């Protein structure tokens, strides 16, 4: 009887503890039309104005996302000249802005995106990890991820230290799994 009691307690705890550590990611209302079973590939091109540093940041961020999960991958290449998906830079004087992403969608399906890092921000210009973090954050939006609550360890977190958090974290990977469950 005692053994059964202990077993039941352990099982109950095993179910309750993960519940309290539930993922904090938030999802955008829009996503790519991924089909069951295969990796969905998003073709992306560089804008004509992109700098070498920004190009390298997006190359690295694409590699970060592609190695973090298998649901959806970016194909960023100069050969994708007909793609409407673009990575680029913007020059905005606001020093609190690291980048932004413009997503165009029909209904809940993403049609195309433009992901930008802000080269008007001195930290984006001078700090390579910050640049990579900003590029990774914008590509996360392009995948359909929104900002999670403040304490979450996530590249999608606006409160993150961009010199420390510059690759997709566990919560980001969970967000991708939730956005593309099949």
């Amino acid at each position, binding site marked *: *009887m*005692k053994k*059964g*009691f202990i077993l*039941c*307690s352990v*099982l*109950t705890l095993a*179910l*309750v503890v993960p519940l309290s550590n539930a*993922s904090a*990611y*938030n*999802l*955008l*209302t*829009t996503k790519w039309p991924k089909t069951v079973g295969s990796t969905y590939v998003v073709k992306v091109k560089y804008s004509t104005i992109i700098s070498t540093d920004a190009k390298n940041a997006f190359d690295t961020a694409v590699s970060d996302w592609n190695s973090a999960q298998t649901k959806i991958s970016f194909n960023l290449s100069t050969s994708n000249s007909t793609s409407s998906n673009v990575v680029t830079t*913007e*020059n*905005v*004087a*606001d*020093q*609190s*802005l*690291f*980048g*932004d*992403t*413009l*997503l*165009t*969608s*029909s*209904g*809940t399906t993403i*049609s195309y995106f433009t992901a*930008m890092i*802000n080269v*008007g921000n*001195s930290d984006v210009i001078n700090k390579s990890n910050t640049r990579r973090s*900003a590029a990774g*954050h*914008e590509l996360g*939006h392009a995948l359909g991820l*929104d*900002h*999670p*609550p*403040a304490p979450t360890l996530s590249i999608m977190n*606006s*409160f993150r230290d961009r010199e420390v958090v510059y690759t997709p974290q566990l919560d980001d990977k969970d*967000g991708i799994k*939730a956005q593309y*469950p099949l």
Partner: protein
Amino acid sequence: MTIKNSYKLLVIALVALLAYFIWNGSEGSESNYKTNASAAKNEAKVINVNKSFDYATSGDIEGLVNYADYVVSGHYEKLEKQWDMGGGYVSDVYSFVIDESLNGDLKDTISVAIPQYVTLYADVEGQSYSANLDLPNKTTPTSTSKYILFLKKYEPANIYTPAAVPFQVEISSTGQTALIYNKKISTLKKVETAQKTVVHFNLDNPNDGLVDEISGLSEKEILSEITNAVSQK
């Protein structure tokens, strides 16, 4: 309660929990989705244009001090001009009279940009459509209040911009303090094209999850926290 009764209760709880998980599993992780029912209903006729930001964000003194190169207290004097900050971002530039420099070496009067709106564009059916949407730092300062600002300098224009969202603490004439920012950013703007297609322009709110740990503190407490944060920077 006997061990036997406790055991029975635990079994019931376990079964209830399993039923809960099975039930939720069959419905997917809908709680994490922000659904847009109207968009789905009008799928063929609606185009969504959504901008998401990566802003430096903090709701506490330490975070704001870490983002800022300059922290000053003082008051706004007058509106100098509207400023195109690039990328469709537009701000109001005010002259700001410094009473005290809390970090950095600023003095006298500086120009401070308060971002107001961003213009979003969409090319639909061969036409270009646009909408202006209010930014998260959009505020209108009052001449009767004192402010503590967390700033960085945009060197090419010699203008100081926000170091974060938010970047202003307002201290009213009665001594009340508040971290101020635009709390109504999620303003959807709809534009209808000649072909009756509806374009939804929307901004993703970067202030979701902001915990304001500053409003309501006394001015003395805020200044003390700033001094501590600056010394640890």
